[in-house]
């Protein structure tokens, strides 16, 4: 039985097609201005790969726009299902998307037990890293392996992303100016310590997974592993975990005969 999950993120729309618990196709399309059109586009890409499909569940920040998908679920529930499907032993999963970071805790049955996302001052998100890379005039990938070469690292403490940026600027404009690798490490540590604070809120428990687009950033994941004290599992395509979860829920709903 074929089911589909759509995750309407703020920057990308992700679609996963599941056929009897096997991922048979997925696609990632930039959201652009008109979310609905891109969602339909992403749907066609995925569907074209293997004929028609009936059961679909949507999630993500832009979910309200996908009026053409009746069944909608919250991002945390979908993430829980997706992570459980990929790594059954995981208890704690960190989703670092473009817009926000969400940490979810699973209970023994693999269901969502608790979650935490950012307190009032939001920083430490994918967009924050993008802005920092732009400020340092280098691509994110280069910044991440540059950070591994740092001797010491300046403390970037302001919680607000905009002020964290002015702190970075003040490190650049300092006499003597702070070396670039140290600043890159400082940026990464400020992102990681925000994530650690969230993990400590829900309680750190082995095994740990990292999902979302930022999980592809090896420099960040290495620093996170050092801070959290254990290896973390990163799925092959970390961006589609929520969409995968939505597809799984679509299958469950079909069995339970739920359509609304």
């Amino acid at each position, binding site marked *: 039985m074929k089911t589909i999950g759509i995750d309407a993120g703020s920057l990308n729309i992700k679609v996963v097609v599941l056929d009897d618990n096997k991922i048979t196709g997925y696609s990632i399309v930039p959201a652009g201005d008109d979310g609905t059109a891109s969602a339909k586009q992403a749907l066609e890409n995925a569907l074209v790969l293997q004929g028609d499909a009936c059961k679909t569940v949507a999630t993500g920040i832009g979910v309200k726009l996908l009026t053409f998908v009746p069944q909608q679920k919250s991002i945390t529930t979908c993430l829980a299902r997706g992570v459980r499907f990929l790594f059954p032993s995981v208890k704690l999963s960190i989703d670092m998307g473009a817009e926000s970071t969400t940490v979810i805790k699973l209970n023994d049955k693999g269901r969502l037990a608790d979650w935490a996302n950012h307190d009032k*001052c939001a920083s430490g998100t994918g967009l924050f890293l993008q802005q920092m890379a732009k400020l340092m005039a280098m691509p994110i990938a280069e910044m991440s392996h540059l950070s591994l070469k740092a001797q010491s690292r300046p*403390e970037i*403490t302001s919680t607000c992303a905009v002020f964290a940026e002015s702190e970075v600027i003040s490190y650049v404009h300092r006499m003597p100016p702070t070396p670039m690798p140290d600043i890159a490490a400082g940026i990464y540590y400020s992102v990681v310590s925000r994530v650690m604070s969230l993990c*400590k*809120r829900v309680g750190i428990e082995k095994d740990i997974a990292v999902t979302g687009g930022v999980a592809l950033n090896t420099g960040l994941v290495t620093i996170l592993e050092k801070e959290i004290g254990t290896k973390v599992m990163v799925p092959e395509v970390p961006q589609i975990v929520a969409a995968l979860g939505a597809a799984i829920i679509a299958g469950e709903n079909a069995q339970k005969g739920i359509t609304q």
Partner: protein
Amino acid sequence: MLVIVEMINTKLATLDLFKEVNNTFPKTKEIVELKSKGKKVIGWLCTYVPEEIIHAAGALPVRITGYGQEVELEDANAFMYINNCSFSRSCLQMGLKGEYEYLDGVIGSSTCDGARRLFDLWCHYISTPFHHMISVPRKYTEQAHTLYYDQIVLFKKSFEDFMGIAISDEALLDSVYVYNESRRLLKRLYELRKLENPPITGAETMEILNANFRMPKELFNRYLNKLLEELETSGIEHKCRSRLMVTGSVMNNPEFIKSIEDLGALVVTDELCTGTRYWSDTVVLDGRTPLNAISRRYLDNFPCARMVPSDERFNRVLDLVKDYRVDGVISQIIRYCVPYAHDVPLITPRLKVISVPTLGLDVEYGTSGSGQIRTRVQAFLEMLEAKRK
């Protein structure tokens, strides 16, 4: 190459001793040594906890302070939530990380929400053997003194049970003498800062005050005595563009004051519980028992912003401004430090009336003066100079 002679004060050797204590705190040489010899070390949180009683029982009182600079408080944010003052969170973070694991006891006082919640969470999450909370009234009436004295007796009794000894009046008198001596020496130090070109900067004074919370009082008095002699004969004179006073929330970071003084001003006095308010009044016996005299001193001492009526504190602040000929006041208030935040619309007009402007700074505990703070302080100094012209 242009040689600019930096005035390195090799003359104040004792100051380096104090800096050594501060840099190694909380695990300083003396504390580790005393612990190994079996001496009890008791942490206290607020200036309404009478240190003399701890000292008289033969234990070493140590003030619990947070990190020396602004750091990421991961655990404390998870345990105490982000909307509590960063002083409490910084202390809790050090406690949770085991930096104070050598403490045999923690004495709290119900002075403000931050302090009392730090005490609650410390008791709940950190296994320090002995805890005691002193309930402190917010008034100076006779009734309030009776209640506070009753609380001090309760504290002495429960502390005696814990230490397994009785604290005699003689022991209390000895402690009173040692602490009064310390207060007199600190007063002499501050008197030097009334001079036209004081021999000591605000940052150096904070180093001395910090060390004073972190070492045995007898040792501190000896060092401070030596330093005062060095100072009085050093002939060092610090010229300054403006004479400033620092007020507001609890602060222990000399770097913050240094970043102000690097701009050419001089911090000549303060109204902090880690400064003037700590040593201001001495214990006066005049016919009372030592315990009663201690109780009266601690409730009537230079008040914290929690006490009502606030005029008692404001008048003393205005006296400091006149005595030290202060040109401008820097009011640094930690976010979510409510007692001091509420005072801003009360104290600022009173200072304005005697034409002393106030610069309000919105800080976190342990800040050492970021780019934004430097800009505001520099603009403030330029404003003060323009006013003088």
